[in-house]
């Protein structure tokens, strides 16, 4: 298992993600428990659509942003992406907690990786470069218990 503190360090210090929003879920307990307001801003969103709207807005102005969503809201993300976010040409990270345990497939046109404990720093850096290059949001799937 990866340690939440180490994951945050990569996000803050290496990738320079300083703004996060999302809808709380127990699957994110480990990451939420190690948030540090000295390093980041976090806005609790009223729903998934609001979180995606906020992240799209901050990303337009070049603020590297992340969104926390549970997999049941993946459909909302795809809908909002196709309706609006796609045309903005912005990149941000979408952390999706896999609550169902079933394999999550990448929606059409949206990059996706599944977080794994081996060599995750390099994978996150590569994925970040990819979504910035393609100006697209990218999904990082978090399986149950992968981060402690």
């Amino acid at each position, binding site marked *: 298992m990866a340690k939440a503190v180490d994951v945050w360090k990569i996000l803050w210090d290496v990738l320079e993600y300083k703004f996060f929003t999302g809808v709380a879920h127990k699957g994110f307990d480990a990451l939420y*428990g190690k948030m540090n307001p000295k390093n980041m801003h*976090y806005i609790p969103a009223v729903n998934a659509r609001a979180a995606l709207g906020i992240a*799209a807005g901050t990303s*337009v*102005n070049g603020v590297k*942003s992340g969104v926390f969503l549970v997999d049941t809201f993946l459909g909302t993300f795809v809908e909002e992406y196709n309706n609006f976010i796609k045309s903005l040409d912005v990149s941000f990270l979408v952390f999706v907690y896999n609550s169902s345990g079933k394999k999550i497939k990448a929606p059409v046109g949206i990059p996706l990786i599944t977080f794994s404990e081996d060599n995750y720093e390099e994978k996150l850096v590569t994925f970040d470069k990819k979504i910035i290059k393609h100006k697209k949001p990218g999904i990082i799937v978090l399986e149950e218990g992968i981060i402690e």
Partner: protein
Amino acid sequence: MITRTTVIKEILKRLDPTDITIFIGESLCEEAYVNDCDTSFYIPNDYPIGLTFALGLALSTDKRIFVFSSDSLFLYDASAALQMAVSECKNLCYVLLNSGLYLSAGGHPNIFPTLSHSQGVFFRMGFTSFVFDSFFNIPGGLKEIKGMLDTIIGPTVIFVEVGKRRGKYKELNKSVSFFSERLKNNLNTEGTALFEPPNINELDFVK
């Protein structure tokens, strides 16, 4: 009753050149596009995500963000307005053009006029609120708007009652991608958000 085109035109004339304006809704965008300027951005569909998109912009810049929508859009997802209200963004202003009708869908009535105290609803959410109706209806009233807009501290909502009749409009002949690039060029990326972030340690869900 005054048209949305006129209201938008008169407000735009009295904003600072650096203010960013966001318009949400197809017919509203077309009416605003008549007075298009470089700092305008259009979301030509009734997507509630537009309200929180404007909030995201406000969080990331020190420029003032004015977002225009119909009352119908507010009703479609009132929680987006709630998110704006609690944001503490001093640079965020929501201009709510209320007609009591679904103007983009045949002009059928909506429930906005039947809210017992619509201004109070927004005030209780956390907005400061102003009603601009009188400025448009009394002689010389428009002169007062500039002073009001200059001193607004958000999150604020401005109510203006508009008529059913459609004013001048112009079809958007550019894509959202074009407006997005234009918006990026007009935002000051060196600016900082004018809000106090919530203290996450005080939130219940953080261990």
